[in-house]
């Protein structure tokens, strides 16, 4: 009986409210396609979505990169990472050769997606997602020791996106009085610089999220912690 009430109030009532609202949406309302496409030659890129993300609404992307860093701080302050590091003898036989094959390809594809994002579908987020996928594979193959030994580089990678974005914001604020208002002939260079830094940051952030906690500090006397699988 209780289940019926739950179904009614969480499915029936919202649906009753949402469906008429959706049906009442006008078929073709005035939208921002024409203005954003018209201003494309001045924006420094020729993909409208990239132009919106990094030029017209660059402030939102700045805040998003900030949110990424904030979430990593939150996740890392909760607990330590519980991923086990595997020796060469414990590795699965097919995984390491596959990783050796696929890592350069992933780096190449992510760079390609970044570069082509200025004219075709792609961009910093998609490339960053590829690097995040590479990090996920490395961590789940038991190679997360890299996160602990090169922790300084990992932290630098986490921070570089927001830093470059803030530098760009402050510089454009001082130059032209508005945040992220690039000059026309330097717009594409600014966007490329911000995208490269943001891609590195996004990839390392996704890897840090998958790590699930701060990297364990290595010490030789400490026994390896096992992931509890009950």
């Amino acid at each position, binding site marked *: 009986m209780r*289940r019926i009430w*739950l*179904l009614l109030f*969480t*499915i029936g009532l*919202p*649906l009753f409210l*949402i*469906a008429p609202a*959706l*049906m009442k*949406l006008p*078929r*073709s*309302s005035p*939208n*921002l*396609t*024409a203005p*954003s*496409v018209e201003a494309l030659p001045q924006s420094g890129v020729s993909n*409208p*979505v990239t*132009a*919106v*993300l990094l030029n*017209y*609404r660059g402030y*939102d*992307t700045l805040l*998003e990169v900030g*949110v*990424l860093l904030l*979430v990593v701080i*939150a*996740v890392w302050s*909760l*607990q330590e990472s*519980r991923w086990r590091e595997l020796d060469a003898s414990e590795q699965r036989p097919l995984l390491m050769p596959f990783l050796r094959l696929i890592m350069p390809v992933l780096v190449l594809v992510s760079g390609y997606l970044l570069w082509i994002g200025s004219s075709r579908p792609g961009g910093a*987020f998609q490339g960053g997602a590829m690097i995040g996928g590479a990090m996920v594979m490395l961590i789940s193959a038991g190679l997360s020791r890299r996160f602990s030994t090169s922790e300084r580089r990992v932290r630098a990678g986490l921070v570089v996106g927001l830093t470059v974005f803030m530098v760009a914001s402050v510089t454009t604020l001082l130059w032209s009085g508005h945040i992220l208002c690039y000059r026309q002939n330097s717009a594409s260079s600014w966007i490329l610089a911000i995208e490269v830094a943001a891609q590195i940051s*996004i990839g390392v*952030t*996704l890897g840090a*999220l*998958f790590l*699930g*906690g701060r990297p364990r500090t290595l010490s030789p006397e400490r026994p390896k912690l096992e992931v*509890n699988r009950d």
Partner: protein
Amino acid sequence: MTEIALILYLLAGGLLFVIGFYGVWAPQELLRRILGLNIMGSGVFLVFIAIAAQTRDPIPDPVPHAMVLTGIVVSVCGTGLALALVARIYSMTRDESEERQQ
């Protein structure tokens, strides 16, 4: 895209949102509730992109696309944080139940 197909996607987005909403309240396991939150987000994104596809020009409206891209990344981060919290809750309640057994 025909008009009927766009209405179909709009209503599908609304239904996804509602299913996700049910999934936040009804299940017992925390993991399933997190999945429900994600499904709610996917429903909202579907509504956005369906509205963006309703333009008269062949090019869809890029502003909702950018908003959904930002939304996807932020929702993944939120899911990561939620799962880290669930892992912490799990390890704390497991230590508690071990202490009680001793």
